[in-house]
């Protein structure tokens, strides 16, 4: 049973780093790297393992049965999220080995990084509402600290805003969990889903509202997005790519999908709200990105816009829409991580994030420039790269579901995306040279990580080829759309003993 080890291993590593590696930074980095590799192998293995276990593995703690104790549910959706978490985090750990040369406190960085992975893995696996809240808090606490890692004024300010927003949203989620417990007297997600089938009280709408606001704040949907363009750029580059690439997806989008599709059974009012908010965030994020001159802020607003695409796909509620959303989620985590790492490399070389002080870098930093070009083309949806396919699926799904206007918006924003990324390329890597001198060359681990991610941008398009699609993305889509399977397993165990 490998399920609990996804949480135990990084947790153990974090405590171990705090115990033995406080003065020895290389040991801390080594432990983190080893854990990253182990988790990466385990997560891919878990996806393979599922096909032999009818698509779901359940694990119960402390030797008790489900509604009494906490259960972990490993199905294709969880496994998919685990793969994203572990692959991106492994690359981010590798990237930060040399990126952290200019920071103090390496061991705190790696310990907090391990705790962030613990929290996200816990969220992806848990089958219990209160446990979801606890693990959200673990990953958020480490995220606040890592955003403020540089201890500059702006970073502290961004971390404070993020912490306030995070605390409000977590409190809302806890309140709604309390209401759910009151009407069902259970905390297990599957059990709650089963009991809500014949529950017709109005208070459930209050729960919907609180959950949408709570998880919407975490995933930066537009009325709740104000913290993201501050918090994500302020962090060190590997953390920015973790936050934008993985954290908001696990805490916001994954949690919303799990709660609303598998537990509440995709109520129509939820789909409508998510659809509208998704389109608004797509448009607002895109337009705001056009006006940015700080390279990382531009990427931050771009995240808001791309998250809008994902929510558009989810809000359609059709199998094709959800397939597109899932695929775009994977792709976005790859190329947004890549783009933040590029920005980090540029910042490492020039010590500035202002695009007006760059220009003509393509000759000095050829690898950074090339990989950044690949990332930009992917995110704006140019054919050979993965972003094209996921956006295409979402647009086709819009037309198929009878919303051609939404498809039009998606195409328009895709063009705007291309425009602001071309602007970024033009002012950063091409055109007139505006910087004075390059402080330092981009080190080895930074280059390697960027090349790997750029390779993944091309490779992940393979997932959409018929034949491979059926065993990967379609399985994930099935889990989301099939509510009965998720809640079924709890039935024979009601109030069971050991």
């Amino acid at each position, binding site marked *: 049973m490998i399920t609990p080890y996804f949480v135990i291993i990084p947790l153990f590593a974090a405590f171990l780093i*705090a115990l033995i590696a406080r003065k020895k930074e290389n040991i801390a980095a080594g432990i983190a790297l080893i854990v990253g590799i182990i988790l990466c192998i385990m997560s891919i293995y878990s996806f393979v393992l599922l096909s032999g276990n009818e698509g779901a593995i359940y694990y119960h703690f402390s030797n008790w049965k489900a509604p*009494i104790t906490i259960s972990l549910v490993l199905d294709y959706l969880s496994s998919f999220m685990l793969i994203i978490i572990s692959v991106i985090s492994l690359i981010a750990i590798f990237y930060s080995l040399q990126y952290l040369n200019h920071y103090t406190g390496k061991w705190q960085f790696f310990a907090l990084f391990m705790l962030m992975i*613990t929290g996200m893995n816990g969220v992806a696996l848990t089958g219990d509402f209160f*446990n979801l809240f*606890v693990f959200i808090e*673990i990953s958020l*606490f480490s995220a606040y600290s890592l955003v*403020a890692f540089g201890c500059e004024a702006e970073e502290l300010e961004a971390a404070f805003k993020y912490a306030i927003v995070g605390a409000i949203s977590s409190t809302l989620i806890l309140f709604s969990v309390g209401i759910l417990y*009151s009407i069902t007297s259970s905390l297990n997600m599957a059990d709650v889903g089963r009991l809500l089938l014949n529950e017709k009280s109005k*208070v459930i709408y209050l729960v919907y509202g609180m959950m949408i606001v709570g998880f919407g704040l975490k995933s930066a949907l537009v009325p709740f997005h104000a913290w993201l363009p501050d918090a994500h750029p302020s962090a060190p580059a590997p953390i920015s790519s973790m936050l934008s690439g993985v954290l908001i997806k696990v805490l916001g989008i994954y949690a919303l999908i799990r709660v609303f599709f598998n537990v509440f059974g995709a109520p129509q009012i939820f789909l409508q709200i998510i659809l509208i908010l998704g389109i608004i965030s797509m448009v607002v994020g895109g337009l705001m990105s056009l006006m940015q001159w700080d390279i990382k802020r531009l990427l931050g607003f771009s995240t808001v816009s791309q998250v809008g695409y994902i929510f558009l796909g989810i809000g359609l509620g059709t199998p094709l829409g959800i397939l597109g959303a899932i695929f775009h989620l994977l792709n976005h985590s790859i190329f947004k991580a890549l783009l933040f790492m590029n920005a980090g490399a540029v910042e490492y070389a020039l010590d500035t994030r202002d695009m007006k002080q760059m220009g003509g870098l393509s000759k000095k930093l050829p690898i950074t420039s090339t990989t950044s070009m690949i990332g930009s083309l992917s995110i704006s949806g140019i054919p050979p790269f993965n972003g094209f396919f996921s956006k295409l699926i979402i647009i086709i799904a819009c037309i198929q579901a009878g919303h051609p206007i939404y498809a039009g918006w998606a195409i328009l924003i895709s063009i705007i995306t291309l425009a602001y990324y071309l602007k970024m390329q033009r002012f950063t890597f091409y055109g007139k040279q505006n910087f004075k001198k390059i402080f330092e060359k981009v080190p080895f681990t930074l280059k390697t990580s960027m090349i790997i991610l750029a390779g993944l941008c091309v490779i992940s398009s393979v997932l959409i080829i018929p034949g491979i699609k059926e065993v990967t993305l379609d399985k994930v889509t099935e889990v989301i759309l099939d509510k009965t399977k998720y809640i079924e397993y709890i039935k024979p165990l009601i109030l069971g003993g050991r």
Partner: protein
Amino acid sequence: MPVEIWLHFILGFMIIGAIAALEIKDVLSAIIAVGIVGLGLSVAFLFLQAPDLALVQFVFEILCMIILIRAFTHRKEHKIDLKSNVVLVAIAVVILSVVFVLGIFAFKELPSFGKPIARIAERYLTKGPQETGSANIVTSIILDYRAYDTLGEITVLFTSILGAFTILRVIGRKQRR
């Protein structure tokens, strides 16, 4: 007097304390007002038959007050007569009142006070002591039935201490050349 009336009294007291804490000008008084709200909560826990929580809330409140007072009140430069933005306050009050009115309709549907469903609770109460050997059933839940949550809890505490330690480094970045 029945428990409900006492609780109404304590809750009213807590609401007044909370509003006072948010509106008072002086930092020390505001922190103490919140401390009173927390101690009111501790008393409410006693009335609601939760002695574990009353104890934890009580000591937690003392520690929090000591930390906040020592961390914030010796900063002489700080003046706290800040006026909030009137437009923002108006918007917030309108939205929150709407939410409150919606809440009136929603909370009617909850099981009424004093009559919870307590489906799983029966299981814990009847079999808990025999199965875990702990006379304190709350302890048997947090350390046996749901010990994984407690692991999460100590991890949260660990993270926040490590985070505070990280944030309080004086020098975050080394000088660039």
